[in-house]
Structures are given as C-alpha cells and as structure tokens.
C-alpha cells in the first residue's frame, strides 16, 4: 500500500561508468500510484528487469533515491519494503509440497496457521491448484510450476506492490488468457499495485491501466494504453506498440498539407505551423486508421501482399518506395493491384526527427 517514486534513479552494472551507454538504466523520475496496474514494456536489454529489481530492492541503484510514500527506502531490503515478485522462470522449492510452497512467504512472516490455510486455499482456488496442494512441487509441469510461483507472489494480502517479470513466458497461449484474467481479477479485488514487465505489446496494453515504454535504459513514454496507441510521442513507441506497428512516411510540408512520394495528404493548419521549422518530418499513422477503397479520392497505392488473420486482414500497400500496412475487417473485399487509401485526419500524426510534433 504505497506510492512508489523514483528520484533521479540510475543504475550501471559497471563499477565506474563513464559514458551514458554504460548505464543499464539512465537517470529517471517516475511514480507509481497506489493500486495501479502498470506494464513495463520494451525489447530485451532495455532495462526493464533492472528497473523492476530496483523497485523490489534486489538491486541498489548506483544513483538516486527510491521513495515509498515519501519515505526513503533506497537502502531497505525487499522484506522491509514488503514487495512480492514473480520471476520469468518458475522458482519453486523442490522439496516442499505445493501447499508449503504457497505458505512459505506467510510462515516466514509469522502469520498464524489458520490464516495461512485460508490464504493458501484462496489463492490455490484462484489458480486452479487446489487438487495439487498435497503434491510435491518438483513433480509439476513447467506451466504448473509457474502457477505456484505466481501463487507465492499473490498469497500475501498486505504487500506494497506485486512485481511480475515476464511471468507468462513458459505458458501456452490458451493458458495465458486465463492467467492474465486471474491477475486482473486479483487486481480488481484487492486493489494492490501491480507492475508487469513484458516485451509483448498486446499483453502490456490489455493488462495495464498505464504502460511505461522503455528503450535503451530510458523511459520513452508513460501513459494509458489509449494514449500510447493513439499518440505515441516517439517513433519507437509507435513502432513497438500495435501489431503491425505504426506506418511512418517521410514527407515534405506543402501549402495545405504534406507531400509523400509526389502525392498529397491533408494536414491540419495547426499541425503544419508547429512543424514549420522542423527537420526529418514523417507522417505517422496506425494501420487501423487507414481506409482502403477500390477507387475515389485519396492516396493511390499499389496493393501487394494481403494476409487474412481470421479476425482482421492486413494489406501491404506500396506508395513509391514506401510501404504502408492497412488493417481491414476480414469480410471487407480488397481490390487487387491498385487501390486508394484514406487517412483518418484525427489519427494522422506528424513526427520530426522521431519525436511527435502533434
């Protein structure tokens, strides 16, 4: 139950870091509100796990302070911070039963045995482990072991936050749906702070109320899934979020819009004036915000590959040397060879040198 804050926190695994590249985590200020569901999203090597371990206290940051409810906990242990954490690969105590595994964090904190029993059976019920409670944990399959790991993270009722480090890596797609739903239920029921590390943008967006996008040890953008999807502030965020990611088209400003490969895209006047002095201009648009027709007004393109993914079709179109992905409903017919694209003006963004102009 805490507000977690980072004050100029940075971390390097080297003893005497000299350059910015030596830092696994570059100086940052962040805050996690009590009761939020957060996702830390980024490719491998972007510093997600480092950040997580600094929150939990497994790692002491090279610089800066970590505050819980305004109290400096930079030098406090994980036990003092009262954090629960679930790791990427299942960590179980081989010699114990599933029950003892789940009870372990409670017993270590001197919780009364009646309370332990009720908490464990509640968590086991939730994770569908009730029938396995008497079994030795070492005999379980990998995904069941991961459920036990999750259970140990969830069994404590009074934690400051529960941290998850890509917990569903070893789990089949079908089970992922169920487990993610369980986590959301727990979050709703106990309103505990959840911080969830993942490289899977779909997982991050559906899980979290707020998503923190990381790249090369820095936080690029923090916001609701909707903000990140609609208005990514960096090119990387646009690319990384969404499947397929945002389309980027190098452009030149013209009298009342933008010119891409000799064709014209209307842009709002306000946007154009903001970008008047900028260099490296690109139009950014989501594949979902583009309409595709056989003919009419709009951007004339060649239509290439079309993939039917069951719930949607993805068409790859060519505009000069640029590629534009378009998502359409599966029933919609797609013209062959040539078509016309229509950009939703409300969803058309402009980027300068990789940063959002508006």
């Amino acid at each position, binding site marked *: 139950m805490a507000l977690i804050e980072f004050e100029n926190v940075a971390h390097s695994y080297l003893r005497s870091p000299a350059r910015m590249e030596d830092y696994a985590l570059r100086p940052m200020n962040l805050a996690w509100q009590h009761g939020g569901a957060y996702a830390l999203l980024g490719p*491998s090597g972007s510093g997600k796990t480092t950040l997580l371990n600094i929150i939990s206290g497994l790692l002491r940051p090279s610089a800066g302070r970590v505050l819980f409810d305004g109290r400096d906990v930079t030098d406090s242990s994980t036990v003092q911070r009262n954090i629960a954490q679930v790791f990427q690969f299942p960590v179980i105590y081989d010699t114990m039963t599933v029950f003892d595994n789940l009870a372990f964090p409670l017993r270590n904190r001197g919780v009364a045995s009646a309370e332990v029993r009720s908490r464990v059976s509640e968590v086991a019920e939730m994770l569908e482990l009730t029938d396995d409670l008497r079994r030795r944990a070492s005999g379980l399959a990998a995904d069941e072991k991961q459920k036990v790991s999750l259970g140990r993270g969830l069994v404590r009722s009074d934690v400051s936050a529960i941290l998850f480090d890509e917990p569903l890596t070893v789990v089949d797609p079908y089970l992922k749906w169920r487990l993610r739903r369980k986590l959301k239920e727990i979050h709703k029921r106990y309103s505990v702070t959840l911080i969830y590390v993942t490289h899977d943008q779909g997982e991050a967006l*559906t899980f979290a109320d707020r998503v923190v996008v990381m790249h090369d040890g820095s936080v690029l953008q923090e916001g609701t899934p909707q903000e990140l999807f609609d208005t990514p502030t960096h090119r990387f965020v646009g690319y990384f979020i969404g499947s397929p990611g945002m389309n980027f088209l190098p452009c030149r400003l013209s009298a009342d819009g933008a010119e891409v490969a000799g064709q014209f895209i209307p842009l709002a006047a306000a946007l154009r004036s903001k970008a008047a002095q900028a260099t490296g201009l690109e139009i950014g648009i989501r594949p979902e915000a583009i309409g595709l027709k056989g003919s009419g007004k709009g951007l004339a393109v060649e239509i290439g590959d079309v993939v039917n993914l*069951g719930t949607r079709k993805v068409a790859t179109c060519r505009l000069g040397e640029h590629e534009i992905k378009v998502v359409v409903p599966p029933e919609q017919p797609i013209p062959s060879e040539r078509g016309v694209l229509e950009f939703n003006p409300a969803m058309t963004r402009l980027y300068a040198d990789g940063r959002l102009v508006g």
Partner: protein
Amino acid sequence: MRLTLENVTKTVREQPYLYDVNLDLVSGSFNVLLGPTQAGKTSLLRLMAGLDFPNSGTIREDGTDVTLLGVRKRNVAMVYQEFVNYPSFTVYENIAAPLRRAKRLAAPQVDARVRATAQMMHIDHLLQRLPSELSGGQQQRVALARALVKEAPLLLLDEPLVNLDYKLREELRRELREIFRHGATTVVYATTEPQEALLFGGNTVVLDAGRVLQSGPALDIYHCPATIRASQVFSDPPINLIRANIDPQGCRLSPSVAFPLAPHMRALRPGDYRVGVRADHIGLTGHAEYGCLIRAKVELAEINGSETYVHAGHGDFQMIALLQGVHEFGLGDEIDLYLDPRRLFVFDGAGDLVAAPGENAGGTGAH
C-alpha cells in the same frame, strides 16, 4: 521434395508420442504444424529429419522409402526452438559449415553463398563475431541462415521464433514469409500460435496429443474446424463453446437465450449440441433477422488500443467478445451482446463438427 508419411506411429518406452500419422506434403509447399505444447510436433519433425525412427509406418521422399535412413544420408535442414549454433565458430564459419561438409563446395563458392545468405538474414555485419556475442534474435538469424544456405529440399523449423521478443518475432515472420514465398523447398514449420498458421497461410496440420486432427489450407481449417479440439487449438483468443439444445423451432442456449435457426443449422436433428462462436463474431449490434441477444455481465474488459476484449458471463457460461474500437465498461455492468447465429459452429456430443457457416455467412462479400 514431396514428403509422405503413411501410418507413422512412434512410442517411447511404451508411451505413445504419435499415433497413426498420415501426411502428404507437396513439393515446394509451406506447411504449418499447429498444436499445443506436448502435441507431438517435435517428435514428428524429428522423424521427418531422420533423427528418430518410427516404430511402424513408412516415410517417403519423392516416393522413395527413407523410413530408416539416418539424418546424414538425407538432405534436410533444421532450426530448433533453442538457438543452436556452434559456440566455438564465428558466424561466418557457422554458416559455411553445411556448405563445406554436406555440399563440399570450393572456397570461393562457399564465400559467395555465405555472404549472400548473411545479407538476406541481415547479419552480414556480424560475420566475424562468435554466437555468444550476439543477441538472441541475431543468434536465431544465424541458425536460420545456416539452415537456408544449404538449400536442402526439406527445411524443418521447430518453433523457431518462440524464444524471441514479440516485435522481433513479427519482423522475422515477415522476412521468412518473403523468403519462402517462391522457394522450391518443402518447409515444415511447427508452432503453437494460430496467428502464425494464418500469417504463413499454406497447408496447416492441426496436431493434438499425438494425433493429426485435421489438415488443409489454414483458412479452410479456421473456417471449418472438424472437431471441438481442432477449433480450440486453432483459436486465439479462445473460441467460446456453449451448450445448446436444437429443435426445429430454434436453438436454445439458456432459459433466456434462444434464437431461430440460421440456414446452415436447419438440417440438424433435434437434440443437445455444443455451439462454438469466435470472439469476433460476438458484437454490440445484431443482425435484424438473426441477431441473438445475450444479456451478460461484464467480468473484465481489456483494451489493446484499437480493440476491446470483453470477458462476460451469462448464467453458467462465460464468453470472450472481441469488439472493434475502444469501449469502456465497468466491472459488473450489464451489457447486451449479440451473437451472430450465421457464424456458429455446431458440434455433436462426440465433439465432431456437424454444421459450419458457409464461406460468406453474414459477411458482406467474399475475400
């Protein structure tokens, strides 16, 4: 290479891994083996490669019986789920290995083909590095390059992207799709993800618990899964399965939910069935004639930016609906969901498909 498996069975220590598998993979085709973990995908690939041998049955390459022929005598390439490279060789030497050993090419030819393949996999700037100095994605690119450079007539890929980051997966999928589009190689690609089967298109073999459930073009299976199990394996998000009672008047899902039969269901005999409906066929609006209203309580709404997954319950069943656009729902809200009966799969008591929507069911046109 045309690869044929006839009545292939594999047991290991009395435990069956594969039962009576029959497959016919056409020369130059792209085939996806789709199945959950432990379905027998890897076992099947190993038989195809000649790394293991079946207990019974026959494997033919272009009609020739190769059932007991070892891997060194077959001309195959394989990529594993784990990043398998020779740790003490540079990237260059890794890629050159099959050319030098299996193909016994002269140095200039080796060099040309190594460089060409490395360029195709975008690792030409890494040729002098050791695999341990590369990221996971780069390591798997090396493994793929080593498999591709051999230009073997049969290429086996065992969940090659599963250990990579989401975005890397997306990139490599796209590249592989390009590479295999016009190839003469017969490719077998194992995966647990329905999306990959659809993305690669081609021939899909649905495997579960060591048995082939169904095989055919990916979209055909998607639109017409032969069994409940096949429909589950080939669904992400999970397909909604609901008990139903059908009689000539209509189909009843619960005391309060019933609807008149859609055309494809009219020939069914009265009785108990299970109906399957995909998440994207449940919506907030219904068709005037056929729409089936279900009043449901929201249990969870997940928004991914452009779509909303609604988990909702009605009576004793739960559904996942995939709604286009962003919809905010509160927990416990009562909402009206419409299920499109023209898109229902109907399965009998044994789990076999007895009625499936036509290609154009409910749609506005063909694709």
